[in-house]
């Protein structure tokens, strides 16, 4: 490693509290801010899901404090059907935008992408700060919807028009609440675009010497590919939100058809196309699924290679597969619309590329499994969550085969089967990636280890708990249990109530055991065992920084030089069975 520091004039790190911890330009602080925001959002979203689950099985049970939050939506704490939909909308919006987009991509990406490529910060630190604070404003706008008189919107996280477009007539929450939703997502799109731009420019331009594209770790590739997807996806949702807001507040008719009568009011709009919203939304919405899952794929692959102590069968193939998935993700949006009334023949056109996505997904899975076979996997909380990720990815992904076929989707559409599918493959799998990343990178981010015992306990409870929640969803869906109902009183649904009860108990249990994680996070932050420089004996550049957490400029005024591919494991070297990217040593040179 060269000492280039002598030539460099440093602007020192900020000293004031505000510039250091609040309006910081440091990508590491911004990454942690994203993580904290995601934590706040995930717990809010989880509590909402608890309320929904409790209401589903005990429809008349008053829920403490809820009555105070919304007198109209939950009089005496008992959830009304409309308020159930509001809870569902807010749960989905919080989880998809503020958790699944923020945690694996914006949080970890911000923190580790610059370090992994040997940069001292993102390309545009000011934009970076703006991205976070814009996201935060979007979060505040969204949460404000809880406190406006009619409560949050009830059109789901997909905000289907015309329900989302016509205003108050279509239900409580469809007044100001829905407008706030549109505004929040509009602002979120701007934040995501700024963030993606930053990630792309950083990856392309700030790689240190020797860090060719081919030498970037898988997870950096995942963030890079995700930012490309995110750039083009949010660029479509942004104008879609603009048009939706105009329909609501300016009286235009982009999405509202002629002669629409809602609550006995003939709507003063004509000629709009509700399908147009679905096209625009899902053109964003499907790539969004991969914005959530690809960073997790990257994190998991990165950690698994480290835990297996040998290279993957082909880590580059995983990168190509991620590219393939990213490319295909733009051609499949119509599979969300098989039953929307669009031309049935177009279903075939969308079904084909959807099934094609299973090819790169399967290749990735086989590479993971093939690499795991015969490896001496180091079992710890991080690698357990990686295995959990693969399990969820496969279990949730397999049901995608069914849903991708229009003829089967006619039956399964809008049932709990779909809910089970996307919660497993997109929600839980991505969250497992975040957990794995947290256990793996916590020593780097804080200089302390997380408790391994609590980590394993957390894994097993969460792993079993999530299967108990989401596997029965598939059964419910096959039994014809429709989604979005707030109570199951129909004859054919009543016999399914025991299954719902089981799911509710599982959800309460799984949510509660997340407190183990929070305890571990907070306790280890202050009292955890001090971490050694490279506790996992990993190779990538984040473990070459002079301290944990890394100094303000990441490498202490030195530009690291990269000499190797990212995953030199299972080799002979002076350090043991691995060779760090920044080590000039050649494998096998050591006597």
């Amino acid at each position: 490693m060269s000492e280039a520091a002598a030539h460099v004039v440093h602007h020192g790190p900020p000293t004031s509290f505000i510039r250091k911890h609040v309006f910081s330009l440091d990508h590491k602080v911004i990454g942690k801010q994203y993580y904290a925001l995601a934590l706040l959002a995930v717990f809010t979203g989880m509590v909402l899901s608890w309320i929904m689950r409790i209401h589903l099985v005990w429809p008349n049970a008053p829920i403490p404090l809820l009555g105070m939050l919304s007198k109209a939506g939950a009089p005496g704490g008992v959830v009304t059907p409309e308020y159930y939909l509001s809870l569902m909308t807010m749960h989905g919006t919080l989880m998809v935008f503020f958790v699944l987009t923020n945690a694996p991509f914006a949080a970890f990406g911000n923190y580790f992408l610059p370090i992994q490529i040997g940069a001292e910060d993102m390309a545009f630190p000011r934009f970076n700060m703006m991205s976070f604070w814009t996201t935060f404003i979007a979060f505040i706008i969204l949460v404000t919807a809880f406190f406006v008189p009619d409560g949050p919107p009830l059109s789901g996280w997909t905000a289907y028009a015309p329900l989302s477009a016509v205003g108050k007539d279509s239900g409580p929450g469809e007044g100001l609440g829905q407008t706030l939703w549109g505004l929040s997502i509009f602002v979120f799109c701007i934040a995501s675009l700024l963030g993606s731009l930053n990630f792309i420019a950083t990856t392309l331009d700030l790689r240190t010497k020797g860090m060719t594209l081919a030498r970037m770790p898988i997870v950096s590739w995942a963030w890079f590919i995700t930012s490309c997807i995110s750039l083009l996806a949010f660029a479509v949702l942004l104008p879609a939100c603009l048009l939706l807001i105009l329909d609501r507040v300016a009286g235009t008719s982009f999405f509202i058809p002629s002669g629409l009568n809602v609550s006995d009011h003939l709507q003063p709009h004509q000629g709009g196309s509700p399908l147009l919203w679905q096209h625009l939304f899902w053109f964003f919405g499907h790539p969004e699924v991969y914005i959530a899952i690809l960073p997790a794929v990257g994190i998991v692959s990165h950690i698994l290679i480290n835990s297996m102590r040998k290279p993957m069968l082909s880590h580059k193939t995983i990168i190509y597969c991620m590219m393939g998935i990213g490319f295909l993700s733009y051609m499949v949006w119509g599979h969300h619309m098989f039953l929307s009334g669009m031309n049935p023949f177009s279903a075939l056109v969308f079904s084909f590329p959807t099934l094609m996505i299973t090819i790169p997904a399967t290749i990735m899975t086989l590479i993971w499994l093939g690499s795991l076979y015969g490896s001496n996997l180091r079992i710890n909380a991080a690698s357990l969550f990686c295995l959990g990720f693969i399990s969820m990815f496969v279990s949730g992904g397999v049901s995608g085969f069914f849903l991708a076929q229009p003829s089967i989707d006619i039956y399964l559409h809008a049932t709990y089967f779909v809910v089970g599918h996307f919660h497993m493959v997109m929600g839980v799998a991505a969250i497992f990636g975040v957990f794995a990343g947290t256990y793996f990178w916590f020593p780097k981010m804080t200089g302390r280890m997380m408790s391994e015992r609590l980590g394993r306990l957390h894994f097993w409870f969460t792993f079993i708990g999530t299967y108990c929640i989401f596997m029965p969803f598939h059964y419910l869906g096959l039994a014809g249990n429709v989604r979005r109902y707030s109570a199951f009183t129909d004859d054919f649904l009543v016999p399914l109530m025991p299954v719902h009860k089981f799911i509710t108990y599982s959800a309460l249990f799984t949510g509660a055991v997340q407190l183990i994680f929070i305890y571990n996070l907070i306790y280890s932050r202050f009292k955890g065992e001090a971490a050694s420089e490279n506790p996992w004996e990993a190779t990538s550049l984040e473990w070459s920084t002079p301290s944990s957490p890394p100094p303000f400029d990441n490498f202490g005024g030195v530009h690291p030089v990269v000499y190797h591919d990212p995953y030199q494991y299972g080799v002979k070297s002076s350090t043991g069975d691995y060779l760090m990217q920044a080590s000039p040593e050649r494998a096998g040179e050591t006597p």
Partner: protein
Amino acid sequence: MATTLPPPQVEPQVDDEEDLRPHNGNGGGIRGTAPAGGDLRAVKDPRGEPTRTGIWVGLSAIAMMFAALTSALYVREGSANTDWHHIVLPRILLFNTLALIASSVALEVARRRVAGFMRGQDSSRSSATVWLNLTMLLGLVFVVGQYLAWLKLRSQGLYLPTNPNSSFFYVFTGVHVIHVLGGLGGLTRVMVKFRSAAHLLRRSTIDATSYYWHFMGMLWVYLLFVLWMKL
């Protein structure tokens, strides 16, 4: 001097320590963007310059956004049974178009003069400043002209919600003008930096600003074509 990072390398083996001297400027990076003396004229941008990359990435997002709006227009036209009423585009749009194209030309001239000044071929800033001012003026003319076009439509009773054609007209022109105003903001930044005694302007900044500005011109010609064809 900047604490910048070496640009991406293509050679697989790295053992040339000499090349590790810091490059000047990490393009927008916070940690030392200016050399000790402050004069950026002699500074050569590194090969991978984030400002230039960033602007292309940003432009691709803007292009995608207008692609989405265009497809929305086509879909909406298809769903309209009776409410697709053609509107006559205000004549002033042609004048505005010429102003925007002329401003692009002016900026290109300005960019070359600025480059000449930075290389030391030109001793004074004045000629470049004149062209920058002209660019700014023509840009403002365009914005005012677009406003006049809206007034013209309003005088015909065509407001945002009147019919889908007027809705799309206002949305397309409005979103474009917001981006043009962003470009004018960038241009102001270039002018302020260019005039500063410490020579704070970088080549990459004016390059990026001019790519953005030319893109706004091309985008407008495209939008005008779509509006003229469809509305």
